[in-house]
């Protein structure tokens, strides 16, 4: 059982880091299916915890060819844009979200859709907690639709990416989720 976000945020920083539930490659390989019947409203998803450094930011800039200096040129960020430090990329956050949903729905579910806003400036050294909470459940077309609130919260409880998502979990006695994914009809 994952610790609740509320309880996690009461912990000292070094203890928050010990509650990271990001899956290893082997855990992802062997992950057992969570079925629609296994979940309930209010249930919290595992917490993915990150502690980015300037090197992580540089690696992301290089990987996606994002040349915005606020992410790797500290002098520019401080003196030109008047930022408090290098800034964590919004593009990285928005890429973690579908990864997080993929991992939770594996091996046979589907991370259908998500939307989120970008708030707050995140900086190296922040502890970032990717979280999700079930807000609604609907069975439709032989699929289990799960609505979620999600976000990426700092160790201080500042929500940097409030959002929502809808993912699909298979039913225990239901058909396979189609791939490529075809949404259920209204």
């Amino acid at each position: 059982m994952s610790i609740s976000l509320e309880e996690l945020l009461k912990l000292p920083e070094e203890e928050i880091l010990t509650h990271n539930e990001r899956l290893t490659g082997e855990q992802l390989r062997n992950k057992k299916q969570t079925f629609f019947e296994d979940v309930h409203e209010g249930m919290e998803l595992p917490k993915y915890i990150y502690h980015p450094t300037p090197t992580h930011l540089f690696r992301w800039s290089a990987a996606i060819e994002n040349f915005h200096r606020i992410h790797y040129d500290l002098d520019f960020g401080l003196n030109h844009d008047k930022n408090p430090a290098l800034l964590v990329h919004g593009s990285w956050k928005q890429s973690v979200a579908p990864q997080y949903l993929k991992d939770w729905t594996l091996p046979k579910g589907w991370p259908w859709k998500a939307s989120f806003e970008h708030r707050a400036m995140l900086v190296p050294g922040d502890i970032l907690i990717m979280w999700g909470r079930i807000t609604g459940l609907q069975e439709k077309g032989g699929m289990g639709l799960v609505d979620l609130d999600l976000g990426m919260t700092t160790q201080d409880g500042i929500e940097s990416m409030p959002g929502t998502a809808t993912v699909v979990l298979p039913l225990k006695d239901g058909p396979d989720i189609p791939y490529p994914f075809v949404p259920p009809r209204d």
Partner: protein
Amino acid sequence: MTQETQSALTPEVQAMIGVSGEVVEAWGDVNEEYLRRFTQALMDPDPRYWDEEFAKSTPYGEIITPPIMVSYMATRIRPDQEDPITRAFLEDPESDGIGRVERPGALPPVPTNLVRVLNAGNELEIYKYPSIGDKLFFQNRYSDIRERVGREGQPFLIITTETTFTNEKKEVLCITRASTIRR
């Protein structure tokens, strides 16, 4: 909004809603090296991205790639175009490294004198994981432009650009919507 404050949602701005760009073929293809760099930077160790034998046993039947990866691959600077970074710094030695760097598939600018740009949010719909070797195609469209009024009574715009990503089989991979605030 007071009578003295002019609306930012002018007829010229409204006319941009629905304007689409051309379907652009992204340079290169989906490949293992880009995938390795992307997933390592994302810190996603999923063997579905690199273990071909295991990937064949999954519902996808092959190596997959993160859905949103295509949005970064698609806007890579082509090797046959002028180096936009060098040009950006020639034009402005204080360039932020991104503002004047032209990317393929860009839509015509929205005709507004509101120049400050802030990221307002993103939406993502996922239909298929891109496959290794896929050619990528994308098309941008202004899907929505709305006006809001700030705390000090000044109007600002929320501009949403929708991008549809497809492969060479015309299969929709994902649809993204990026909203920016223009103040």
